[in-house]
């Protein structure tokens, strides 16, 4: 298959390239890049006003397979990723069985290769501890050898400081980061939303922001002591943003990500007890949202990742406190980033692409994507001006648990190209 991408705006933060041009793609590789190309044998895709960027990767996705296929499968998750403009995802290990054994890494990679003919690259994040129980280290070397790109007990924190120290030391031997879900467990026991005025008003047990900050503060000290690489998942507080900023200034290998919902919504969204506003960490306050945006702007926050957490319709059709944590995010991420960050001047399009492609790939040691003649075509194409209304029923994800249904967004994926396959939206 040949494509001729006409008149798109190519933005490649790695080379600093930002220009309107044509791109010829042959058998999954980039042929020529030049203005006014004419290739009669190629399918022409008119992209005037659209952005052609290196393929986006979502560093934080729950694909749910194996074990929870009623919520999502590798196939439906990959389809949702493609529909959301991603050519790669990192999948979290809280499956059943968890990704704490190389056989599970291999199983996921094998199934991902078949799903959509390998259009979406799936990079497993393996567990830090056996069974994600926080007690004994998982076989990190074997997991890395099988293809795990990072380690995390996500969904739960690595709560024990000694285990965290040893995990960081061990993972540093093969240069993999430990991704932490920072949450102090006793401080958040029974909690269902951010502790603060809204929780006080609604009488919902709270999860204080300091429960995230306290674990991060400890972890930064351990990271400093071990010299290892530490990545904070779904950072949600102003306090954590300040600490990561300081850790970076000190030269530590600390990176972090933020989810679209944490910079788009505050805990006031919980007011009508919609269980699709329940996630962990919870939606925080306006002050936290402002701090996150500042952190995105000044580079403290490296990555935008969704924490795509599918749950079935019935699982969320319960009282707020009984509902599971998590919302889907793959298919609304791009629109939320453009609407909330690019159009309000927090990020340039180039910075957006860095945080959704370049930076996350660097954190998990993936090769750089080069948009140059002769390179593999790994591209995300999107329309930064398209306006659309979120319809959760149209999601490719098996689950529809999103608080953004009905919301008007600007910015929509047009298509993705990777591994010789293309998906047009």
């Amino acid at each position, binding site marked *: 298959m040949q494509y001729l991408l006409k008149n798109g705006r190519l933005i490649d933060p790695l080379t600093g390239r930002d220009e309107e041009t044509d791109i010829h793609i042959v058998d999954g590789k980039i042929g020529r890049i030049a203005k006014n190309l004419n290739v009669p044998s190629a399918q022409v895709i008119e992209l005037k006003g659209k952005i052609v960027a290196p393929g986006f990767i979502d560093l934080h996705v729950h694909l749910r397979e194996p074990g929870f296929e009623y919520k999502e499968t590798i196939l439906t998750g990959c389809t949702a990723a493609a529909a959301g403009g991603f050519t790669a995802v990192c999948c979290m290990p809280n499956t059943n069985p968890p990704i704490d054994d190389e056989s599970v890494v291999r199983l996921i990679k094998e199934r991902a290769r078949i799903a959509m003919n390998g259009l979406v690259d799936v990079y497993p994040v393996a567990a830090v501890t056996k069974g994600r129980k926080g007690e004994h280290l998982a076989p990190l070397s074997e997991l890395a050898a099988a293809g795990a790109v990072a380690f995390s007990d996500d969904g739960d924190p690595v709560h024990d400081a000694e285990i965290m120290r040893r995990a960081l030391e061990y993972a540093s031997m093969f240069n993999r980061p430990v991704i932490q879900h920072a949450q102090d467990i006793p401080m958040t026991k029974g909690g269902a939303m951010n502790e*603060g005025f809204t929780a006080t008003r609604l009488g919902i047990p709270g999860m204080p922001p300091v429960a995230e900050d306290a674990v991060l503060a400890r972890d930064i000290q351990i990271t400093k002591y071990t010299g290892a690489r530490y990545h904070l998942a779904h950072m949600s507080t102003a306090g954590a943003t300040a600490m990561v900023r300081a850790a970076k200034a000190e030269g530590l290998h600390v990176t972090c990500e933020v989810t679209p919902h944490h910079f788009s919504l505050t805990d006031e969204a919980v007011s009508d*007890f919609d269980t699709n506003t329940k996630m962990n960490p919870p939606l925080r306050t306006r002050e936290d949202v402002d701090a996150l945006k500042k952190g995105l702007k000044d580079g403290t926050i490296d990555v935008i990742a969704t924490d795509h957490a599918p749950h079935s319709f019935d699982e969320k059709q319960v009282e707020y406190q009984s509902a599971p944590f998590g919302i889907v995010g793959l298919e609304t991420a791009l629109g939320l980033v453009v609407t909330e960050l690019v159009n309000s001047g927090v990020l340039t399009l180039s910075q957006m692409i860095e945080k959704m492609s370049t930076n996350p790939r660097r954190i998990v040691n993936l090769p750089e994507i080069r948009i140059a003649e002769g390179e593999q075509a790994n591209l995300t194409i999107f329309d930064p001006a398209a306006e659309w209304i979120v319809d959760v029923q149209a999601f490719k994800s098996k689950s529809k648990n999103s608080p953004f249904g009905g919301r008007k967004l600007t910015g929509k994926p047009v298509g993705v190209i990777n591994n010789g396959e293309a998906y047009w939206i």
Partner: protein
Amino acid sequence: MPLKSKHLLGLDGMSREDITLILDTAVSFREVLERPIKKVPPLQGKTVANMFFENSTRTRLSFELAERRLSADVLAFQATGSSVSKGETLKDTARNIEAMKVDMVVMRHSAAGAPHYLVRVIDANVINAGDGGHEHPTQALLDMYTIREKLGRLEGLHVCIVGDIAHSRVARSNIYGLRTMGARVSVCGPATMIPRDIERLGVDVYHHIDDVLPTVDALNVLRIQMERDAGRLFPTLREYHNFYGVTRQRLEKAGRAITILHPGPINRDVEISADVADSEHSVILQQVLNGVAVRMAVLYLLSSRN
């Protein structure tokens, strides 16, 4: 004039007119309760389901009595534990009960917002009989009724709520209702029992009860959950009693007549001393009687909207 809402989920956002309508209507039903024949016909032919997912004795009995006094048919449903641990969801339980052609549902549930969820899945009128730490509107209405009966008004009074404010639905509903009715509201308790940012609800916070008593007109004393909280939210019951217990000595020192309320059941000599509970300033038993009248008013007003 009907109530604005089809349900009574809480006092947060309820207008002064609606609160006043309920309290005024309760006056007539209070009079009914003094008659030799205490039954009136407004809910004849109506069926009310009492769904109690959490243990309750007095609220359940009070509602049941109110419903029977109004001639309703009463369906009692009791289940302990959350809907999820029971296996059947709240949605399925409620729909099953509604399928039996129930007109009104009175629900007590351990989760905040459970009745707000319920109204999305069933058509019957829903009355919140307590949802987690969120609201207990009929309790606050009967508290306000009792204060108004005793002191003649609510506007301009200073009402202080003492105890575990953080986990109390009674406190929240009282704050919303009393503030709407023009009272000054303060809360008093150890820092561990005062929820974050509660000042933003327009209340004053005190940690030392002797500081607030000299200006208080009515004191609403909350029950201490002894089993649950000792050692966690406060060190010992003795210490709690010494620092927050409402005693005659404390009240005398304050030098004014303070009306004493308690939602019950009381722990004698923990949050309130026995002599205060039994004193002439205590309206604890009037609260119980008024509770029936207030619940009759709520049932009647919601039912007559249909």
